[in-house]
């Protein structure tokens, strides 16, 4: 039972990270119907920026905020400079551009920061907390807290601010939104910026656990995709639900299903992705989209 609880908590912590990245994916998907395959590498690059700042002696939380700002600006710039020219191109062109971005960020990180694995600090205390027989890591709890906080902030932003309303309008009906004076193109760029910032949080939360290296996000990204699809790619709440669920499933499957172990964890993600797409392509909370021919 103790092992079970412990696995659930560590699953929730990992799930929080998948949830953040899944949330970033959903934000871009909602406004443009693109799945940003480079989201993981962008998050990885943001984490390297945070590492550079911390390494230069800047206190953790200031570096944290600075990284969010830099990532936000970077996301906006990528949308304006690289995605916008191919916005209406066929899906294949877009996927290729996303893969191009993925490869560029990965190799740039390797080029600038080398491929050596680096430790990344956690802002939370190190000594484990014991509740009964269950030992919890403060970083796990902190990561869960940070994820929930981000979710609340985003919810508040989209629900209660006029900018959030404008962004929702631009995503739902670009033409009408433009007619009432919303600058749709800039709303998309803002969406990219926010997604990049949320991704940066995911990167900074996962880096203390799996260490910092240019390939660290490959597996995390696939789990985030699985989470977004499972929860429903059209639903931000669903993405967060999917993230936590998949984190827990991953942890429990790794412990209790003997033939999976830690070796085949990615297979779990593949099964979830293909399974969701086959059984209920809209995910648990997603809405079916009817398209006109």
């Amino acid at each position, binding site marked *: 039972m103790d092992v079970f609880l412990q696995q659930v908590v560590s699953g929730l912590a990992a799930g929080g990270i998948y949830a953040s990245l899944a949330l970033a994916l959903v934000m871009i998907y909602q406004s443009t119907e693109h799945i940003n395959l480079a989201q993981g590498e962008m998050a990885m690059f943001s984490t390297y920026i945070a590492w550079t700042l911390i390494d230069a002696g800047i206190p953790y939380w200031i570096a944290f905020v600075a990284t969010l700002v830099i990532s936000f600006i970077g996301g906006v710039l990528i949308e304006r400079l690289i995605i916008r020219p191919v916005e209406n191109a066929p899906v294949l062109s877009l996927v*290729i*551009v996303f893969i191009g971005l993925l490869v560029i960020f990965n190799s740039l990180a390797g080029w600038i920061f080398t491929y050596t694995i680096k430790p990344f600090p956690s802002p939370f205390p190190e000594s484990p907390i014991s509740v009964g027989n269950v030992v919890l890591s403060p970083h796990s709890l902190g990561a869960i807290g940070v994820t929930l906080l981000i979710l609340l902030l985003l919810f508040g932003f989209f629900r209660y601010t006029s900018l959030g309303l404008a962004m929702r309008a631009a995503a739902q009906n670009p033409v009408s939104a433009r007619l009432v004076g919303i600058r749709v193109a800039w709303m998309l760029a803002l969406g990219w910026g926010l997604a990049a910032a949320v991704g940066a949080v995911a990167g900074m939360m996962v880096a203390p656990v799996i260490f910092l290296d240019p390939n660290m996000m490959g597996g995390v990204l696939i789990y985030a995709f699985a989470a977004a699809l499972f929860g429903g790619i059209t639903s931000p709440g669903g993405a967060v639900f999917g993230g936590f669920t998949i984190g827990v499933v991953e942890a429990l499957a790794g412990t209790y299903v003997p033939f999976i172990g830690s070796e085949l964890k990615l297979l779990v993600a593949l099964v979830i992705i293909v399974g969701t797409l086959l059984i209920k392509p809209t995910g648990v909370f997603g809405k079916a989209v009817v398209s006109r021919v």
Partner: protein
Amino acid sequence: MTAAAPRVAGLTTRHWRVVLVVGVLVLACVLPFLVSNYRTFQLTMMLVYAIALLGLNLLTGYNGQISLGHGAWFALGAYTTAIMIDQWGIPYYWTLPVAAAVCLVVGFLFGVPALRLRGHYLALATLALALVIPQLLKYQPLQPFTGGVQGILILKPEVPWGLPINQDQWLYFFVLAITLVMFVLGWNLIRGRVGRALVAIRDHEVAAETMGVNNALYKSTVFGVSALYTGVAGALSAVVVQFVAPDSYNILVSITLLVGIVVGGLASISGAIFGAAFIQFIPQVAESVSKAAPWAIYGVFLILLMFVMPTGIAGFIKWVSYRFLGTRGGD
């Protein structure tokens, strides 16, 4: 039309293409006697990539189904061949049809659920497939066959019939012969009814279905055929490199293949050769700058080509011949 066909230096476009193909073939036969063994090995690998790229192009270029996981079929073909040689001592040339058949069947079976996915989703599912492959190959219970992380070593094939060439040259001609067969078959597939159906599905699925094309059958079959091509390429690569290991079949193989078809030219048969030359030779030049440089160059090429030349090198050559010679080059 033939009477009005534009002539360049007294020959029609059709004749020029025959001259060109014969010229390239002669060059291909002479080349291994002019360069070092190492260069011959590189040329052999280029041919191997050309087969794999043709396979990916059938699926992605002609049929519009995006695959970011073709490294999986490459690995499947390579391991089929390596295990057959290593475990049962079967000669390498008999393993090729088996690798082809295995990839055809598995590819077809993966193509059936893939029918439900399109665009981004298919890209995603295939990307996950590519990420899983190295993990599966390292999987403990499969180790007696796959050799785990260590991989499998294969001996270099002997030159048969006492031919006066060395082993590298023999491998080159062996691969060249198979490349020719695969390209002729691919060309036949594309230029006829099947090719038109594939392109129709890519351009407008509903319209194709209305015209009587069996979308489901075509799409899953072309998935299988595409896997077959890439699997044969993988099998040949195992023989040529004489070694297979899980980490040589990571996600980067799939991305390299994607780079190849984009640079060479989507939906183009000759594009497979240009793309293969690019992915075989450019990284070596770039690697002298930095370990990360080849990938940075790949990334920049991917994005730039989508902006300025979405049809790749083959499209560029076609454009030049149309623009300056007034001829309409075909595939």
